[in-house]
């Protein structure tokens, strides 16, 4: 125990040092080279990967996979094919070129300048500032659950302790030097995940045997889950059942597509020097994501078989009903103790870098996008607004982390990804590829997608509608529509609405002026 604490502290000192050093070196290097940061594709891909995949993906979604089974692996396919291949090879290249030709520095800014709309930049900035903390909280909860299980301290103490350390790290320069430490921690995570899957398969006698063992355990699925459509951990949920909708509409589709419109990921494309860096990053990113979510969604379901062999219980029983604790308990009870310590360090670093990027994004959204560009205020206030924004993002994240119920990581992440895709994706894609897209089309798509998403969440989607209670107060019914609509993810409805609005309104309004379009697409 004492040795573990010392190791953790030593590790934190190294990370602090690297964060500070990285920030200083990045600055001088940029000033010196000016032609563009020489960001190595390995560092770029690792940094993107480490921002994309964090404790929420490994601990939260790994836990969800332990409950729902291997069908969640479809999200890994989308993470790699959409989140890396399509994101880098198509969205990334255009974002980099258009972002630079328009002198844009944030995700809302590229949209705002492309559509010549301060409203778009301000609205996007506010949406990100207000809702990003929910996703950041998913990451914070992930690491806090791990600390709770591993160091055996109360959840709230782990959460607050970690937040204090992170705040010091960020104010020490960590927010600025994020990319530098990402490659280190990404590499550490990669190694730990490979060991994790190799160990798990070997415990169960090899790949096929492990799958077969889990297949033979289908009779152990709890009755409550069976009633929802669970058919065993190596089978897809029953077609059209509530569980089928949760797995495929919320987890696989919502998160798998939503990654394309993630503000904190899109800005990464603008910092690379040329297309070759993005091409090379596809290779590194693909392998990295397979090792992250692919392994988390494999070890998650298999944890049922390992736990059953050793303790006679399935994973959710071991975690006493809290999905978010399954992976931490698996690491603690099944893996060797040296592994658990190193895994904790990898998770700490992952959470620190992802949260730093999120805090950075929240602060800049409020300071630059909303206050400075949308309201048009300058004269020093924007610096204060950015710092104030970072502070508020940290506070809201901690607040959500303490307030949200157990088993929430995957749901909170899916909420933010879904909201981003229905609000931003059609407008973002059109900004990059469709010259006929207009400002009116973009605004209606953005606002329409946002409203549709929230309407569905508050009035139709049972889980949130019941918790919020507004629908019941206004109409006397928990949800306006019954099954299957009340289990269909908001994104299934809101994204098509947003796409249709983008196309129809753009075609009904006059094209943006040629001169502006030429400037936007000058380098594409």
């Amino acid at each position, binding site marked *: 125990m004492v040795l573990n604490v010392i190791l953790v502290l030593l590790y934190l000192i190294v990370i602090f040092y690297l964060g500070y050093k990285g920030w200083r070196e990045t*600055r001088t290097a*940029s*000033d010196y080279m*000016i*032609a*563009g940061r020489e960001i190595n594709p390995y560092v770029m891909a690792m940094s993107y990967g480490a921002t994309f995949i964090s404790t929420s993906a490994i601990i939260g979604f790994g836990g969800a996979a332990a409950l729902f*089974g*291997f*069908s969640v*692996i*479809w999200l*890994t*396919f989308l993470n*790699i*094919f959409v989140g890396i*291949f399509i994101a880098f*090879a198509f969205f990334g*290249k255009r974002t980099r070129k258009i972002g*630079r*030709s328009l*002198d844009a*520095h*944030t995700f809302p800014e590229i949209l705002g300048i492309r559509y010549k709309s301060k409203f778009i930049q301000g609205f996007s900035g506010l949406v990100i500032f207000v809702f990003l903390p929910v996703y950041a909280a998913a990451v914070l909860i992930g690491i806090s659950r791990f600390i709770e299980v591993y160091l055996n301290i109360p959840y709230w103490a782990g959460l607050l302790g970690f937040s204090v350390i992170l705040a010091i790290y*960020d104010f020490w320069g960590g*927010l600025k030097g994020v990319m530098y430490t990402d490659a280190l921690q990404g590499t550490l995570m990669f190694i730990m995940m490979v060991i994790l899957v190799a160990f798990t398969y070997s415990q169960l006698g090899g*790949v*096929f*045997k*492990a*799958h*077969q063992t*889990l*297949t033979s355990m289908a009779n152990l699925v709890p009755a409550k889950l069976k009633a929802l459509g669970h*058919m065993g951990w*190596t*089978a*897809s949920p029953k077609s059209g059942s509530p569980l089928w909708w949760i797995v495929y509409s919320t987890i696989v589709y919502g998160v798998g597509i939503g990654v394309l419109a993630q503000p904190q990921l899109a800005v990464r494309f603008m*910092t690379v*020097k*040329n*297309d*070759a860096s993005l*091409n*090379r*990053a*596809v*290779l*590194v*990113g*693909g*392998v990295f994501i*397979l090792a992250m979510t*692919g392994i988390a969604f494999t070890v998650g379901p298999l944890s049922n078989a390992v736990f059953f062999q050793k303790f006679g219980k399935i994973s959710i029983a071991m975690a006493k009903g809290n999905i978010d604790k399954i992976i931490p308990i698996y690491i603690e009870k099944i893996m060797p103790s040296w592994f658990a310590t190193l895994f904790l360090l990898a998770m700490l670093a992952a959470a620190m870098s992802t949260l730093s990027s999120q805090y950075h994004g929240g602060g800049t959204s409020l300071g*630059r996008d909303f206050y400075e560009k949308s309201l048009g205020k300058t004269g020093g206030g*924007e610096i204060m607004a*950015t*710092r104030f924004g*970072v*502070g508020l993002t940290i506070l809201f994240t901690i607040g959500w982390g303490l307030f949200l119920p157990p088993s929430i990581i995957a749901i909170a992440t899916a909420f933010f990804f879904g909201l981003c895709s229905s609000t931003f994706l059609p407008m973002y894609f059109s900004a990059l590829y469709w010259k006929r897209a207009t400002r009116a089309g973009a605004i209606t798509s953005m606002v329409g997608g946002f409203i549709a998403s929230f309407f569905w969440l508050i009035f139709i989607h049972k889980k949130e509608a019941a918790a919020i209670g507004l629908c019941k107060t206004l109409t006397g019914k928990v949800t306006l529509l019954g099954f299957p609509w009340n289990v269909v993810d908001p994104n299934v409805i809101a994204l098509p609405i947003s796409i249709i609005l983008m196309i129809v309104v753009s075609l009904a309004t006059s094209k943006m002026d040629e001169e502006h379009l030429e400037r936007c697409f000058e*380098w594409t």
Partner: protein
Amino acid sequence: MFGFADSLTAWGYILSILATILCIIYGLVNWNKGTEIEEDYRRIVEWEREEIEVEERLP
């Protein structure tokens, strides 16, 4: 298939690996494509300057 209870799940597993192979091949084939920078040098310098300014505002 592969010890899974149904083929849909097995395909998710296989496609994840195939998608990774696609990424590896794409990366290798295009390794040196797009090394030239066609953008205007001066404007990139401006972009870099402003990017540093944005970062400087953070705490």
